Structures are given as C-alpha cells and as structure tokens.
C-alpha cells in the first residue's frame, strides 16, 4: 500500500490488472494464433480460386449476373462487387468466415469468463487485489485484442493479395467488430446464466437466430430491412470493395461496446460462480438412465445431443426449403450450371443432384459431432469423473466402447433426422423430392463421420490431450480439400486423400458398398486400436 501512495491511481490500476491480462492472454493463446492464421489462409485460397476461375472481365461480368439471383442471395448473401477480387471473396467466403469466427468467439468467451469460474480457478484471481468488475473489463479487453488481431490478419491477407487496401481495412475492421459482437453476447450470457454450459446454449441460440435473420433478409427485397436487425446484416451492408460504406461501421463497433458494458454492469449484480437466473439447485432428479455403464453414457450425452438435433433439424429444413429455388434457378441459367458441373453435379437430374450436394456438405457436421463427443469423453477423464466408474466394475474397454458406439448411433440418428427435416422443407415448397432420396443423401456421408469418430477414439487412446485438436483438424482439413480441391484443379492423387472425396453422391449414385466398407472399416479399426491403447495407458488429468 505504501509503495502505491505516490503513484497515480491509473498506474496502480494498470499494475494490479496486468497479471489478469497476462493469464487471459495465456488461456486464449492457441485460438488467438490459429484463428487469424486459418482465416488469412482461407482468404488467400479464395483469392486464388477467383483469379483462376474468373480470369477475365467477361467471366467476371457473367458471375456478377448469376450471383444476384434469389437462391444465391439466400445462400451466400447479396453480391455488391463480385467483379472485383475482394468483393468476390467477401460474398463467397464472408458468411463462412463470419459464422466460424462467431462460433469460436462464443466458445472462447464463455470459457474464459465462465468456464474458469465453474472450475473454481477464477477464485484464485478474484481473491487478489483486482475487483471482479475490473477483472472482467481486463478480460474483455484481451478478447478484443485477439479479435483485432484476426481482423488485421484478414485485412493484410486481402490487401496483400491486391484487393485494395482501404476496402480490405474496412472489411477487416467489420469482421473484427462482428466477432466482438458475438463475444459480447456470450459475455452477457455468462453473467445471466448459472453455468458455462447454459451460457453457451443461450449465446449459441442467439447466434443462430441472428444468422437466420440475415438469411431471411436476403430472401427477398421486401424484407431486406431485416438486415438492419443483425450484425450479420450490418457486415453485408458495409458493401466492402463496392460502395465502402464506412458509416455502417458505427453500429458494428457500437454493438460489442454496448454488450460489453452491459456484461460489466451485470457482473456487480451477481455472485462469483452464480448467474442472475437459475438460483436453486434443489431438485429431485428423475433418476433415469443410471442403471449400467451404457445407460449412464447415454444420460451424460443426451442433453448435448438434443441441442445438436434441434440445430441440425432447423438447418436441414432451411436447406430443404431452398431446394426448389436453387433448382429453378439453375434450370434457367446455363452459366451457373457449368459452375455446378465443376462441383460434380449431374445437370440432367437437378433436384437429386442438388440434394446429393447438400447431403455431402452435412458430412463434415456429422464428423465434427463425433469428434466433439469423444472430446467430451476425454473431459470426463481429465476432470477425474471417469475414475468413479473405472474404480468400480466398469472396464476401460466397456466405458470407452459404449461411448464410441453411442456416438456412432447418435450420428446416424442425426443424419436420419436431417434427411427427414430436409424432405419436410422441400415438401412444403412443393419440390419433387422423395423421402428415401432425402434421407439417403444425408446417410451417404456417414462412413466419413464413422472414420473421423474412430480417429478421435484412436487419439483418445494414444495422445489423449490432442483428442479434439487432432481429430477435428483432420476432419476440417479433409473437408476443405474436397470442397476446394476440384475448383483449384488439384491432382487426383491429392483429392483421394480426402475421406469426403470417396463418398457416393446419393441419390444420384447408388449407395456405394466399397467406400462404406473401406471408410467405415478404417474407422472401426482406428476405434479398436484406440480402445486397445486406452487399456494400456495411465489415466491422466488435464
């Protein structure tokens, strides 16, 4: 205290907050390096594929015409400057980047602001001289720094690719602000909800609604005003590389600031480790699914599965609604048909071709579900909860085996659900799509999901700390290779490395026995090896 007497109050405040900032930066380190690197790499790939596929003014003019149609507006957004490199990248890849960064920011924010409290680690920090509110402000500033870094990476990647520096900076700023706004939602949810899990659930629901609002706004000019209700609409309205409307940055920058201020204001109204809602944990449990290891594995996975089921059903239904629009559009435009042929779509059977393509895109979603569920099994071990079971009559092989089997079953259920939801959406709009075709298209990528789930089990057995990182990384890399490999003209030997490249395009092609047996068999082998490795290693903490 005496040493502080002469120092300016601000200097003291900064000094006592520095450890909080350092710890937050340390906890966010991996994502803060990976996110900018991946986003910048994606931008460069987009630039390259644009310059390769649309080399001259004529092809760019054609693209400008076909991109501004109802179906593509709904899927990708309203094009503003697709005849320029930057404008194309923003239109073609912007929504993927914005959504991915949003999910990352949401999870990272909830983990830093709430997960640390749930584990009790935050109390070590809060017992120090920094007030809870001051700690929260510091953590929010560190998060903001991480998002600024990501925005800078985007601006530099685009600017250096020759897209125009001023517009690149505008778009980088917009993307950083959009990411920060989603993080702001998570920060508020982290104050309101009683646990990290529920904060993630609430913020993810909000994120989904905000993105759907943008999709709805893009469906027709009549409801275009909806775009002004969501940050995902604001970033479209920046019209980067077109009109460059710098003023629209105002709501984008204001949203995270206001949300962060709200979170800080709410922080003083709650206790550490508690939320503003859900005070009482007194509760007579229903006592279901506690009888044996398999039932209990199902019990611990069920709430998450229900969340995924809801999201998959809504998304697949939206895809179903779009089928007819897309088909009508392609039928009326030979140019876009050629682009689709590039992706391997058979133009003679358009509805089923489009459905086959959509089923393929869901494959990565099912694979990620599998990897993350095995990651949750790893969390059970790392937290020490698995010990209670494995110190009783549950064997290692039984415990891990049941979790792997239930994950595979849940993945199959999710794909059937996706097929039924897509069929329902298509039926509502009067598309000519059979239920078996719809379900078949969603079941087709299952072998790939089994493969990546099996690889996750192998990671869990052999290198448990990398269970999620490695398996999710492989699944995403494999999917991107298949997605971008053909347009980039990569050789067949490289394309064959992607598991998704070997899937049958159901319902255009019949369900292929060979890829199913090969991919599924590899997955089963990897899972068996993972179980064997798990039986031979020590249980380890985090």
């Amino acid at each position, binding site marked *: 205290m005496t040493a502080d007497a002469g120092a300016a109050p601000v200097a003291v405040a900064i000094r006592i907050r520095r450890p909080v900032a350092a710890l937050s930066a340390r906890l966010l380190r991996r994502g803060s390096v990976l996110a900018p690197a991946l986003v910048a790499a994606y931008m460069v790939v987009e630039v390259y594929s644009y310059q390769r596929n649309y080399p001259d003014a004529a092809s760019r003019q054609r693209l400008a015409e076909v991109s501004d149609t109802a179906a593509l507006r709904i899927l990708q957004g309203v094009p503003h400057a697709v005849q320029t490199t930057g404008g194309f990248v923003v239109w073609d890849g912007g929504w993927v980047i914005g959504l991915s960064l949003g999910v990352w920011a949401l999870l990272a924010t909830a983990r830093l602001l709430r997960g640390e409290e749930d584990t009790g680690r935050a109390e070590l920090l809060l017992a120090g001289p920094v007030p809870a509110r001051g700690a929260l402000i510091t953590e929010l500033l560190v998060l903001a720094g991480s998002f600024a870094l990501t925005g800078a990476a985007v601006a530099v990647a685009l600017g250096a690719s020759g897209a125009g520096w001023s517009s690149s900076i505008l778009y980088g700023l917009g993307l950083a602000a959009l990411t920060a706004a989603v993080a702001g939602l998570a920060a508020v949810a982290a104050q309101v909800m009683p*646990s990290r899990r529920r904060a993630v659930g609430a913020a993810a629901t909000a994120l989904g609604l905000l993105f759907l609002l943008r999709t709805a706004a893009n469906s027709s000019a009549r409801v275009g005003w909806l775009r002004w209700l969501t940050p995902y609409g604001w970033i479209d309205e920046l019209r980067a590389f077109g009109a460059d409307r710098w003023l629209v940055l105002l709501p984008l920058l204001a949203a995270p600031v206001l949300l962060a201020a709200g979170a800080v204001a709410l922080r003083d109204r709650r206790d550490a480790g508690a939320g503003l809602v859900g005070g009482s944990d*007194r509760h007579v449990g229903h006592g279901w699914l506690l009888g044996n290891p398999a039932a209990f594995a199902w019990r611990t996975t069920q709430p998450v599965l229900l969340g995924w089921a809801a999201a998959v059903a809504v998304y697949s239904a939206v895809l179903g609604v779009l089928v007819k629009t897309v088909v009508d559009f392609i039928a009326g435009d030979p140019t876009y048909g050629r682009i689709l042929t590039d992706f391997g779509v058979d133009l003679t059977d358009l509805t089923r071709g489009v459905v086959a393509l959509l089923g393929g895109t869901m494959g990565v979603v099912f694979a990620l579900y599998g990897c993350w569920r095995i990651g949750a099994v790893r969390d059970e071990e790392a937290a020490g909860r698995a*010990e*209670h079971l494995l*110190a*009783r*009559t549950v064997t290692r092989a039984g415990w891990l085996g049941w979790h792997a089997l239930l994950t595979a079953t849940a993945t199959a259920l999710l794909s059937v659900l996706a097929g039924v939801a897509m069929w329902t959406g298509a039926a509502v709009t009067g598309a000519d799509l059979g239920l078996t075709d719809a379900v078949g298209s969603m079941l087709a990528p299952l072998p790939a999901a089994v493969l990546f789930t099996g690889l996750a089990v192998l990671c869990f057995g052999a290198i448990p700390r990398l269970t999620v990182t490695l398996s999710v990384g492989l699944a995403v890399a494999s999917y991107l290779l298949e997605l971008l490999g053909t347009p980039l003209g990569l050789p067949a030997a490289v394309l064959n490395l992607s598991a998704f490249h070997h899937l049958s395009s159901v319902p255009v092609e019949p369900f292929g026995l060979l890829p199913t047996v090969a991919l599924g068999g590899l997955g089963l082998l990897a899972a068996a090896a993972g179980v064997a490795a798990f039986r031979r290693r020590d*249980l380890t903490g985090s």
Partner: protein
Amino acid sequence: MSGEAIRTEGLTKRFGEVLAVDGLDLSVQPGEIFGFLGPNGAGKTTTIRLLLHLLRPTAGRTWLMGVPAEDVEAAHRHVGYVPGEVALWPQLTGREVLTVLGNLSGRVDAAFLAELLDRFRLDPDVRTRSYSKGNRQKVALIAAFMARPDVLLLDEPTAGLDPLMEAEFQTVAREAAGRGQTVFLSSHLLDEVEDLCHRVAILRSGRLVEVCALEDLRPLDASVVEVSADGPLPALDRVAGVTAVEPVGDGLRISLTGSPGPLLARLAGAPITRLRSRQPSLEEIFLTYYEDAAGSPELAGEVAQRRVGRS
C-alpha cells in the same frame, strides 16, 4: 498370498524421469485399518491409483483379495474408493450420483444408504454443482462405504470435513473394520491416524521407510530431554544414545534412545536451570521421517534404518 486383503510385490511406477513409487512391498490383512503416510509428493496417491490399476505399474504386481489388480472387473468387485480430488457430474443430484455408483458397484443396500445419508447429514436432492468440497467428499465416502466392499481405498478421506463429520467417518470406518472390511487410508492428520489405524506405512520419495504397528512407532525407550541453562552447554551430538539435538529458547531439545546415563554424565557440571524428560509426540516422530528431504538426510536415514531394523 491367500487371505491378504492387499498385497504388492516390487510395485514400481516411473513417470518419465521421475521414479514415483519404487519397489513397494506391502501386505495388509483383512479387518485391518492401515494408515499410509508421507510428505506431499511421496507417492501415496500414485500407489492407491496403482492398486486400482488406474495407473499401470512399470514393474511389480498387485493383488486385491487375492485377485490380480489388472483383472479390474473381478478385483473391483471387492473395492470401494474415495479419490483425493472428488469431481462429480455437476448436472446430477447427489442421489443420482449415489444411484449410478451403487449400481456400478454391483451391491446396493438401500437401508444402509439411507442410514449413511443421515449420519453424514447430506442432503442428496441437490445438484452436485452447488455442493461444497465437504459435501462432495461426503458423496464419495457414502458411495464407497454403502456397498460394504471388502477393501476400502481412501485417499485423504476427511479432506474438507468438519470435526463432527470427521468423527463420524472414524466411527463408520471402525464399524467397517469390525465387520472384517479392510480400510487403507492415506492421511496427513496424525490425530486421525493415531485414533484409527492399527498399522502404518511411511512412504518417502516413493520408498517405504517404515511399516509397523502404531505402538511400535513410538518405542518405549525413546525420550525427549529438554534442558534449560544460563550458560554454555557442552557439545552433545557424539554422546551415546543421542539421535538429535536442536536449540530451543534458552536451552536444547535432545532426542534420546536407550539409557539417559551417558547424556547425564556429559551434562554434569553444566549450568542447568531445568531438566525435563518426556515421551516423544507422534508428530515429532513423523517429522524425523519427513524431514529427510529438506534437512539432515544422514540422521533421518539412520533413524529410519534403526526403526526398520526393529520391526
């Protein structure tokens, strides 16, 4: 081997460069309450996790009730376990956790469960996320005791319990031993060990330095002599029977084995104002064992060797 509740032969565990447990030979009889002591990092938790086969031994073997530890399905039918760090499923209530753990132990005695809930004063209809450390500990204790297993492996079982509950734990543990169940517990609480345990093992840097009955730990011929003086005292460390000398206040505290004759002969003529002799406390005995890592290895090692020689 038959008839022993816990047996290890040359049990060894190496984590990379670190030898956590080094050639452990243990034998615990049914109905025994066995205390497992040692400073932090001595390898107590590692040993318990090796007994459960949660860790795989680098060398050596282990049996629980005659069943090899690696046959977990058969061995664990005999076991109840309280881990050193109790983590529970936050979304489940205490009762749900006890239900699933009871089902997985294979034996559920509803009446005994109700009795234990009552005796440990645990409200089971609360999600475990809102339990205090003490309440989580109670859940783990009840889960371990309610199945009446043959062997209870308890890693610091009273951590976080209040003194009343600590006493209740001791009663429950004694009742279990009375029924022929074996209680193997690691602890830092010497009072608890003194009250409860029939035998103790002392572990230091992964090696056993002592296994003996509690009364043998405090040998009858050991004593502590405290002398106060108002002048200089002669050097005492070479006197026969003296094992340790440390300055306290205006005098010395001398640890002594056997006859005090040579010590008194050396002190004759010194300006002594007060002389007091007493039995060493359990704490003083343990400190002799524990201090090795920090301070005088030769002396502690000597003492340890002498004690092992006695048992």
